[in-house]
């Protein structure tokens, strides 16, 4: 064994994705490493130059990644950071430049050699895809297409075996195209495999028929071999979802053939389509929602919620997109809540005296709560005459009490701060809510601002939707007549500065129970939540509560800041995922993170998130003219 390669091995093995490779694999990569020495200011690669067959790892020093056109520093890579991953994705030209900002030593790793190993290593490929996306997150010169491709690859990293269709429809090579198409139609499938001695030699999909046949280029009486794509890509029966995804992506195909030994020289046993993979993911969630509808007791709902928790764990593990997970989990939570309300109304001696709506507030209202936490909710009922007010209020208070108890049984514990509809303060008529909002908006002291941040993010769950729309209108009316409120809300959004002082030092809690831990909620997520709320309210939009959706909407409304908003949205997704992972691992809220437990990959990811926080806060400071307030 070569001593130099071994020394490089010792260095690289500390860092992902190299740490995810076997010793033999990594050693053979190290044997091919090139060592670059760069003086401060030297370029490793420059925008527009064609991509080399290598990517880079910083050994010593620091490399800045620059956007040449504007000469802006986009990222700073230090020891163990990887960059130049474009080489793994696409063989075109560099979109950014890499320049030494200190004297540096950089290792370059052969990407073709590396690719060989990661294709069969979902963990490593998933890490790389994430890095690629995070590395380039600040540069939307990146084509959307790559981004979609990479997130897709990242999303489906699933170690479990993929369920493929057994007994695939197939035909012999002498079959006419017409006969094959009939066979496909008869069996209602979108593809047919052409076999010879039961071994797959080619495939025809709907797309082939559309492109090659319907255009009239080839006669339908020709043999299938005229139009089939050949050879087919084959895999053994134990193919995992991630392997399938990577293969489809790599070969730009939508179907894989499954054979006995995984080669084209053995018997065809199945076919796996892109569609199959999507189905694998969605089945379970919809089944749960159906069960909720059939449930008759809160105890049974509790059991379903537990199962939703397992589903969540699996989704997180499989790196399913966080927006998808939040939608699923929120849908389950909402249907459980609806069911609880439904059960509670049945228990009441009479029907509700007037219409009402049940609201989720805070993080639940924003649909950003994935872990089982305490409940935060409120109720609004239609305005009634003064004489009926007291009995109406009493009715809804006791209904709320039943609902809160039911939710508690399901696993959403009572809110310790009593932010629940059974609290007379949060069970109000439309006009009472209006007055309350107006009071908060006109005297935005610390307490009232805090209440605004919780109650403004209300989300309709059950009941009369019109009441909720009325509440939104009332908020905007108040804000319009008291515009300085937004400045206060802006100040509030800036109270937690980005948690990273430059790019190595984290700010941790200085005292208390969580001393030396990092509060991911207060220091990373809330600043983004607050920023999104402020900006979307300033646009007079109430329809969206979810922070990711808000940023997406903002990106639409302000194309000039699209990049930043998309960065924020990505950052928030990563933080939400990260917090959920932490919470699932430690069986807590995931809020406080021990920095020592963070892997290099996680640090890298967090670091990128904070950059987005910093930038959005700068935008708010300028836009709401806050510098003289601070």
């Amino acid at each position, binding site marked *: 064994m*070569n*001593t*130099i*390669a071994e*020394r*490089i091995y010792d260095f690289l093995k500390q860092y992902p994705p190299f740490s995810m490779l076997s010793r033999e694999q990594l050693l053979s990569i*190290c*044997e*091919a*490493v*090139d*060592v*670059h*020495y760069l*003086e401060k200011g030297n370029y490793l690669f420059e925008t527009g130059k064609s991509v080399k067959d290598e990517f880079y790892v910083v050994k*010593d020093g620091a490399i800045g990644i620059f956007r040449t056109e504007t000469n802006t520093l986009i990222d700073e890579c230090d020891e163990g950071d990887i960059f130049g991953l474009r080489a793994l994705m696409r063989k075109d030209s560099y979109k950014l430049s890499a320049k030494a900002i200190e004297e540096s*030593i950089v290792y*370059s790793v052969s990407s073709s050699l590396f690719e060989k190993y990661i294709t069969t290593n979902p963990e490593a490929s998933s890490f790389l895809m994430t890095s690629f996306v995070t590395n380039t997150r600040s540069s939307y010169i990146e084509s959307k297409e790559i981004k979609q491709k990479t997130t897709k690859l990242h999303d489906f990293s699933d170690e479990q075996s993929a369920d493929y269709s057994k007994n695939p429809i197939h035909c012999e090579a002498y079959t006419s195209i017409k006969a094959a198409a009939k066979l496909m139609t008869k069996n209602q499938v979108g593809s047919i495999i052409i076999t010879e001695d039961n071994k797959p030699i080619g495939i025809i999909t709907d797309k082939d028929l559309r492109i090659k046949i319907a255009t009239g280029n080839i006669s339908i009486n020709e043999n299938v071999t005229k139009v089939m794509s050949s050879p087919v890509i084959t895999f053994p029966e134990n193919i995992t979802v991630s392997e399938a995804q990577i293969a489809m992506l790599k070969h730009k195909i939508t179907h894989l053939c499954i054979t006995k030994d995984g080669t084209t020289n053995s018997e065809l046993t199945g076919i796996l389509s892109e569609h199959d993979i999507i189905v694998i993911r969605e089945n379970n969630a919809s089944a749960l929602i159906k069960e909720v509808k059939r449930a008759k007791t809160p105890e049974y709902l509790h059991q379903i919620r537990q199962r939703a928790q397992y589903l969540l764990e699996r989704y997180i593990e499989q790196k399913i997109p966080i927006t998808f997970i939040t939608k699923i989990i929120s849908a389950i939570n909402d249907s459980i809540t609806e069911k609880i309300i439904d059960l509670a109304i049945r228990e009441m001696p009479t029907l509700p005296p007037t219409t009402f709506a049940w609201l989720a507030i805070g993080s639940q209202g924003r649909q950003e709560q994935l872990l089982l936490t305490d409940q935060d909710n409120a109720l609004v009922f239609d305005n009634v005459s003064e004489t009926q007010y007291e009995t109406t209020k009493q009715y809804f208070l006791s209904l709320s009490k039943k609902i809160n108890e039911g939710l508690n049984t399901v696993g959403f514990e009572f809110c310790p701060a009593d932010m629940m509809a059974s609290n007379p303060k949060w069970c109000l008529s439309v006009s009472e809510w209006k007055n309350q909002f107006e009071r908060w908006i006109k005297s935005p002291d610390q307490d009232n601002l805090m209440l605004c941040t919780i109650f403004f993010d209300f989300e309709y769950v059950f009941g009369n939707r019109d009441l909720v729309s009325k509440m939104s209108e009332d908020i905007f009316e108040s804000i319009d007549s008291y515009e300085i409120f937004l400045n206060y809300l802006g100040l509030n959004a800036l109270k937690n500065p980005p948690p990273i002082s430059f790019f190595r030092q984290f700010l941790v809690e200085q005292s208390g129970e969580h001393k030396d831990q990092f509060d991911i909620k207060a220091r990373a997520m809330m600043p983004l939540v607050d920023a999104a709320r402020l900006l979307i309210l300033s646009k007079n939009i109430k329809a969206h509560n979810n922070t990711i959706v808000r940023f997406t909407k903002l990106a639409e409304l302000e194309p000039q800041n699209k990049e930043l908003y998309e960065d924020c949205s990505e950052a928030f997704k990563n933080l939400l995922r990260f917090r959920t992972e932490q919470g699932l691992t430690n069986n807590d809220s995931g809020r406080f993170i021990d920095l020592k437990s963070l892997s290099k990959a996680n640090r890298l990811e967090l670091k990128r998130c904070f950059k987005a926080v910093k930038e959005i806060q700068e935008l708010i400071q300028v836009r709401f003219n806050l510098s003289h307030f601070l």
Partner: protein
Amino acid sequence: MNWFTKTSYPEFWNTYSKHFKNKQETDLGSIRFVVFDTETTGLNPNQDRILSIGTVGIFQNTIKVSDSFECYLKQDLFKAETVKIHGLLKGGKNIKIDEKTAIIQFLEHIKNSVLVAHNASFDVTMINKALKRLELPKLKNIVLDTKNIFNKTNLDKTTKTNFSLDELSERFKIPQHDRHTASGDAFITALLFVKLISHLKKEKKITLNDIKSPKERIGLL
């Protein structure tokens, strides 16, 4: 037929010699450098023997780990007192080859590259002595010495000229892993070399002629 070539030279030497038919390139960007180091039983070229050779290639200012060579030699001579420097035991775990095989492989690897070493004259002499034992002429390669290249930088303001590899790697902040293994020292020397070249390049455009000096040829004589 070249009248000055002894026809009795073995095939490997003739192959090696042929690489020198063309004129030496002087543009640093097109030269393959091979940085090398030897570990020996001692410092007396007339008595001591090579225990190991390590090399690493440099091309276009990039160190190529893929272009490296490492071997350990079987030698009858063994000196207990130098084991503490190089750590090579008489038995040892490394696969050992005889001196002739090592020389054949070394020549095959270096071809007509420009050799680089720290205190190059010692290592070159050790190799030449081994060649002599095989009744062969001396190395034909141009040899550069990082010690002399450093002196050209004028970075040191004192009159001292004889800097050790340890002193220079400390000055240039090169981590001293695997010091006193042939490959380890070759790698450190390689890093030192690219740093020195990079420094000299800042002053002016340089070619091979600017970094080699008659002084460095002493080892060949």
